[in-house]
């Protein structure tokens, strides 16, 4: 039987806690090798979604498929393929960093020396050398998070389910984790990265799924999502050396608005579209006019995110 194309797939996935609907009839799929960000306001269902795919949380309806297998019935063969970082799971806090890593490596079937070697590798990768012999309960929450990440990647899983993996980490450690995810995505592994950080998602995810009240309200590439929701923005060009009475003749064929200042400068405002900008700059050049300044407002991912989640909240 061939390997399924989709590493992760939600089919009508629903999770309710009593009357509260945490995940509401969600369907999407993530092909192998894709890095997908799951974003959404607090309480939107990100942690529950990761819990459902890792098999920790049982769905009320629908299916959470991982490597083609229902996560709620995940056999050990599939569990080997998945690495989970979530607040729902924890390593042994009485064990040292090294002992935790060795234990989990052994639980994934490595013998004692191979497990030790693998633990050394992870300690080095996540820069845990200084705390390798320290019991996890004596470490800061950031270092404990790194140990959890280390235990999740110790068996080099094909699918990473990361829920807020950099929460509590300093900038340097966050960069280590992001670099790791970037490197594994290049080797064809799949990552589901739930986060509240838009900049982080924009940097590492090729695709974003935005949740609000347990529903998927957007599912797109970051740039396309921003453009689709908030538009392209506008560019303002201040030009001198053009007579006010000629403006309509020069720029009339372009969708542009203008104002003339008291000093005689013309302020042109045009959509941030490459074609329109090319034509304007050509016309300005042809007229021998000078550009005084160029500015504008390009919508960010944050603008689009706030717009879409704000609408969902209403």
């Amino acid at each position, binding site marked *: 039987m061939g390997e399924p194309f989709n590493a992760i797939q939600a089919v009508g996935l629903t999770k309710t806690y009593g009357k509260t609907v945490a995940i509401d009839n969600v369907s999407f799929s993530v092909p192998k090798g894709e890095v997908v960000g799951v974003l959404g306001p607090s309480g939107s269902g990100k*942690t*529950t979604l990761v*819990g459902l795919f*890792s*098999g*920790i*949380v*049982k769905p009320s309806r629908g299916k959470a498929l991982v490597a083609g297998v229902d996560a709620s019935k995940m056999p*050990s063969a599939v*569990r*080997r393929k*998945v690495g*989970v970082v979530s*607040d*729902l*799971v*924890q*390593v*042994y*806090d*009485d*064990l040292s960093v090294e*002992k935790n890593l060795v*234990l*989990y490596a*052994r*639980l*994934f*079937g490595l013998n004692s020396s191979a497990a030790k070697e693998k633990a050394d590798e992870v300690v080095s990768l996540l820069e845990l050398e200084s705390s390798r012999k320290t019991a996890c309960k004596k470490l800061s929450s950031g270092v404990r998070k790194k140990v959890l990440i280390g*235990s999740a990647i110790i068996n080099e899983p094909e699918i990473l389910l990361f829920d807020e993996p950099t929460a509590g980490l300093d900038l340097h450690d966050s960069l280590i984790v992001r670099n790791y995810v970037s490197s594994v995505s290049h080797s064809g592994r799949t990552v589901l990265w739930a986060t509240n950080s838009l900049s982080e998602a924009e940097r590492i995810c090729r695709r974003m799924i935005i949740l609000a009240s347990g529903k998927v309200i957007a599912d797109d590439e970051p740039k396309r999502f921003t453009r689709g929701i908030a538009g392209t923005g506008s560019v303002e060009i201040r030009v001198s050396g053009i007579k006010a009475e000629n403006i309509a003749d020069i720029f009339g064929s372009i969708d542009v608005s203008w104002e003339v200042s008291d000093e005689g400068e013309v302020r042109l405002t045009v959509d941030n579209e490459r074609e329109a900008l090319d034509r304007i700059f050509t016309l300005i050049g042809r007229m021998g006019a000078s550009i005084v300044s160029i500015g504008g407002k390009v919508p960010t991912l944050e603008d689009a995110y706030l717009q879409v989640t704000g609408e969902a909240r209403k």
Partner: protein
Amino acid sequence: MRATPVLLAKKDVAEAAREGTILYSFFPAAFLFFASLYNANGAELVPRLASLALVLGSLDVAFFMAREKDKGIVAKLLLSTASSWSIAGGKLLSGFTLGLLKSTLILAVLKYSFGGLVSGNASLDAYWIAWFYAASSLVTLLAVSLGLLCFSLCGGLKAALLYLSLLALFAVQPAIFQSGAPARAGWYDPFGSAYGLMEKLIAEPQSAGALTGEGLAIVPLWIVILYLSAGFAIKGKPSRAS
């Protein structure tokens, strides 16, 4: 066969040694020792007290399950290749290992307390000692497996504490309220059967070889049933999140 239960049990025992919780193992022996100070000739109390001490001293291992579930450690283990059966098996094995230590300490107290009860009534021959370890292991494993099931079912640490007190009451009930184990415990009363084994072994040391009563069948059967049920409970309700 996968060595996961051995791996987890080794971790539990090493952790108990490192953290000092292994000192709990002295509790059953201390319990007996202090009882002997108040009633040096109360030989008839000894089997009950020994069983009682073993049960109370074994529930802590099961209680760790509640703690690990509460913290999300069990959920994390289930994300590895460890099955719920091997997690429960690891706890049972660590309970058994620590139980051996407790039994040894109890044996020492029996020899030197209660007027040298054991040395007075029975020669501490290998045969009797083997039977003593067998009977105390059954009592220990029964307590651990019942505790495991209850703590696997409960939702959090607060509930676990309530369960612990109820369990202690239930498990020791035959010894305290029924004035010792019933002569013929029913199949529904594994603790009565286990206490019965201990009672016979200590009160009538010469009968060690004849310990082939129904308790020997009932108790292991209950241990298996409780262990399997605990495995199902861990599998069905792996974490605080669900």
